[in-house]
C-alpha cells in the first residue's frame, strides 16, 4: 500500500485528531505517481562506469563498490507529481502544522513507491536467475549529484513533469532517481561506502565523518 492513512498521519502528529481522515484523503487524491524505468548494460572503465548506449557515466568509488559483480543496471525516476507540491505551498501559507505532516507523509510515500518499483525489478530479475543490489542515488558518497542531469534526460523527465534546477534540485520535490545493479553475483547488502568514498578525508557534512 503506497498511499497514506489517518493512522500514519496520527503517528506523525503525535495524537489522534478528527481532521486526519479527510486530510489523508486529500493527500492521496493529490498524488500523481509517475515513473520511468530503463535497463542498460554496464561497461567498467578505469575511472568510471558507462551505461551502454547512453552518455551516462558513474564516477566515484562508492558506486563501483555498489555495482561490484554486476553486468547491468536499472535506472529509474519516480515522482509524486506537482499537485502535492502545490498542496504543500498552500498549506505552508495557511496551516504550517498540516504542511509539516504532509511533508513527512510524502517522504514516506515516495519511499514506498520506490520500494514497489525496486521489488518489481527484483522479481523480474530473480525469475531470470539474477540478483539485484539495493537502491543507490546520485549524491550518495562520492557519486556526483551532477549524474542526475543525464539520468533525467535519458528517462524522459520532462514528459513526466520532472525538472532539475541549476543547483540540481528536482522539481517536484518528492521525486527520486535511483540506480539498481543486476548480475548473477550482485551483492544486495549495504556496505561501508565511507571506507571507499573519495571524500572520506574532507567530508565533514555527513555521517561518515
Amino acid at each position: 500500500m503506497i498511499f497514506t492513512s489517518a493512522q500514519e498521519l496520527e503517528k506523525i502528529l503525535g495524537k489522534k485528531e478528527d481532521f486526519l481522515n479527510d486530510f489523508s484523503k486529500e493527500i492521496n487524491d493529490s498524488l500523481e505517481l509517475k515513473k520511468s524505468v530503463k535497463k542498460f548494460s554496464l561497461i567498467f572503465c578505469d575511472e568510471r562506469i558507462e551505461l551502454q548506449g547512453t552518455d551516462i557515466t558513474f564516477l566515484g568509488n562508492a558506486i563501483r563498490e555498489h555495482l561490484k559483480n554486476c553486468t547491468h543496471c536499472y535506472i529509474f525516476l519516480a515522482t509524486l507529481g506537482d499537485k502535492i507540491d502545490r498542496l504543500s505551498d498552500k498549506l505552508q501559507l495557511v496551516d504550517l502544522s498540516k504542511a509539516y505532516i504532509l511533508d513527512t507523509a510524502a517522504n514516506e510515500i515516495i519511499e514506498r513507491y520506490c520500494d514497489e518499483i525496486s521489488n518489481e525489478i527484483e522479481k523480474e530479475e530473480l525469475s531470470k536467475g539474477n540478483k539485484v543490489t539495493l537502491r543507490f542515488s546520485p549524491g550518495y558518497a562520492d557519486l556526483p549529484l551532477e549524474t542526475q542531469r543525464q539520468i533525467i534526460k535519458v528517462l524522459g523527465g520532462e514528459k513526466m513533469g520532472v525538472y532539475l534546477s541549476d543547483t540540481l534540485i528536482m522539481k517536484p520535490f518528492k521525486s527520486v532517481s535511483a540506480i539498481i545493479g543486476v548480475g548473477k553475483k550482485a551483492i544486495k547488502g549495504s556496505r561501508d561506502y565511507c571506507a571507499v568514498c573519495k571524500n572520506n578525508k574532507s567530508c565533514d557534512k555527513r555521517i561518515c565523518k
Partner: protein
Amino acid sequence: MNKKINLNDDLILDGAMGTLVMERENPKAGFPPELFNIEKPELILNIHKDYVKAGADCVNTNTFGANSYKLKNYKEVINKGIELALNSGAKYVAFDIGPSGKLFGQDGFDFEECYNCFKDIILAGQDKTDFIYFETFTDLRELRTAIIAAKENSSLPVVVSMSFSENGRTPFGTDADSFVYTALSAGADAVGANCSVGADKMLTIAKKLTELTDKPVFIKANAGMPFIKDGKTVYDTDSETFSKQNAKIKKAGVNAIGGCCGTNPEYIEKIKEETKDIVPEKRKCKKISAVCSSSKTVYIDGDMKIIGERINPTGKKKFKEALISKDYDYAASCGIVQERDGAHILDVNVGLNGIDEKAAMGEVMDRLFRVSELPLQIDSSDEKVIEFALRNYCGKAIVNSVNASDESLNKILPLVKKYNSAVIGLTLDEKGIPESAEGRKKLAEKIINKCQKFGIDKNDIIIDVLTLSEASAKGSAKITIDALKKVKKLKVKTVLGISNISFGMPARENINAAFLDMAKKAGLDFAIINPTLLKIIPTKEAFDFLNAKDGAVQNYIERFSDVKNIAAEEIKTDLKTAIITGQKDLAEKEAGLLSKELSSVQIVEKFIIPALDEVGANYEKGRFFLPQLIASAEAAKSAFSAVEEKSGTSSDKNKRFVLATVKGDIHDIGKNIVKSVTANYGFTVIDLGRDVDYDVVLKAVEDNYPCVLGLSALMTTTVNNMEKTIKLVKAKFDIPVLVGGAVLTKEYAEKIGGIYCSDANDTVKKLKDIFK
C-alpha cells in the same frame, strides 16, 4: 509550399520523428535527434519523404528540441530542419517547436526570459513554413508565452497542442477547458493534443476539444503505451488498430490527424486509407461566457459567481504593512482562505501609494498561481499595471475596470481586446454616477457599443450598475436593482460590489447579505464580496431597510446597534488553552474579544507568551511533537493577527531577525516553521524567501542592522552557498548568524561561522539569549 494552408481542411499529418530516428539509427539514449539535420540530413529527409509517400499532407520539421537551452547551434539546426522538410515534397510544412526544457515560474524562468527563448526560435524560422506547431507542451504558462511570442514575431498561423495524461490533465494540472480558453485568448489559431496516451484514450480528449471550440483541432496520438521488450522500447498498438481508433477521432469532428511516439509511415498510410471517406461530425459548441486560470474554468452560466474581494489593501492596516514590507505571502493566503470559503474568482488589488504596484502585482499573481486554482480579476486604476498583469497572467482574466468616460474606454479596451480578457464596465463617467436606473443603463449601452467597436465579444462584457449607501440616500438599493434588471436585457453579464450598501449602518453583514439576496434574485451574474458573507442569513429588518419601508431605519438601528453583545456570548474558553491545543480559529476569536478590553501588550504578555512557553516546554520534554508545536505557533499567529488588525504590528521593532533559505536552495518548509515560531515571540522577522542571492541578504542585513541573520539549507550542494553567504556578511557586519537544515551538524555550523540551531524551538532560545 504550394498554397496557403487552410487549417480547417481535412489534413493527414505525419507520424513520429524521435522514435523513428531511434529505430533507424539507434543513437545513444538522450542524443538529440535534431542534430541529425546536420550530421545525417539524408536520414531526416528520407523520413519526411516516407511520410509524404505514405500520404501525409503535412510534415513537421525536425526541430522539436531546437532551442537555446538544449542546443548551442539551435539556429543552424532550425534552418537545416526547415530546408529538409521543404525539400520533402510535402504539400505543407509545419515548424515544429517543443517545450524549452526549463521550468517556468519562481524556481525557473520568468515571462520575459521564456518569451525571448521562443522569440529567438521563431525568428530563426523566418516564416518559411506554412504554420507554427507548438506540441507536447505540459506547462500552460510556457505554452501561452510561446503563443504570444509567435503572434508578435511572425505572421504564420499558430497550432498548439498539449499532452494530457489519462486523468485528462497535464502533469502541471491543466485541463482541456482551461487549455482551450487560455490558448485561444492568447491568439492560437487551432488547438490539439498529442503524445502521452494512445489513440483509444485520446478519443476522449479529442471529443472534449471539439465540444469546446469551433476552431480546427489537431490530434497526434502515440501508438499505444510503451513497454520494454528485449531491452528496447516498443509500443503496444499496431497500425491496423491505430487507424481504426483514429477513424473514431476524425468522426468526432477532428480535422487533422497523424501520429506521435511509436508511429511510422505504415501507421500514416493506414490512417489515410481508413479515414478517407469519413466526414467529421459537425461541431455543436455553443458560444459561451467563461473565464479561467491554468487549471480551472468558471462558466458564467446563470448561477451567480462569487468574486472574492479580500486581496485589497483599502482599509486594512495589516495588508498595507504586508505590501510595504514585501510580504506577498500574506496576499496569497487571503486568496487561499477565500477559495476555501467559496469564492469562484479572486479580485487582486495591490494599489498602495509608495509601492511598486506592477512588481507587487507580479509577485502576488505568481504566488496565487501556486496556491489557488481560481481565475483572477485584475483590479487596478493604472493601465500599465493592467497591461503587465494581462500579459503575464496564464488564463483568461477579468479586468476591473473601465468606466463610461472616453478616456477610460480608449485607454483600457485595446488591452482587453489584445489579451481577450473579460472586462467590467462601471456605469459612471466624467459627470459622476447617474442617479436614475435609466441613466445608468444609458452609460452601460455606451460601454457596450465601444467594446463592440474594439471587437470585444458581448460574452466578455460585465456591467456594474454600482451600489451606493442606502443610509446616505434612501432608495439607493431599489435604483441599483432596477438598473440591474434593465442592463440584463442588453444581453451582457452583470456584477455588483455589495458592501457599499451598508455603509454607515451597524451589523453591516446582515444588510449586505440581504442585498446580495435581492441582487441574486434579480439575476446578478457576479457578486464582489468577502465570501464569508455567504454564511450569513439576513433578517427581515435588513430587507425592510433596503426596501425603504417607513420606519425601517429606526427599527434596524434599535435592533442591531449593540452587536458586540451578540458576538460576546459565543465564546467562553480562554486564549491560552486555545493556543496550547492549537485551535487557530478559536484563538483568533478569543484574541479579538480580548482586544476590546485589553491592550495588545497585555494580551501578548498575559496570554500568548505564557501559552507558547508551556508548549515549548512540553515539546522539549517530548510530550508534544513538532506538528503540535507548529499548530500552537499558528494559533498564536492568528491571535496576533486579530490583535494587529486593530492596533497594527505588535512585534518589537528593535529585535530584528532576517531569515532566508540560501541561494540555490528552494526547500523552505523548515525556514517557514522557524519564521512562524519566532515571530510569535515578538521578534520582527524579515523573511527574504528562498533561493536568496548573496547581495539580497547583504542588503537586508544592512537595512536592518543591527540584527540577527538566520540561514537555512537542505542540500549538501547548497550548504556551500550558506558558507559563502556567511563569509560575505561577516566581512562587513559583526552579527550573529543562526543556521539550520537537514545536512548541518553543530561542528560544521561552527566551522563556517554560524550558530547551530537544531529546530525552531532551539532558534527561539538562541534568539532570546542574543536579544537579552
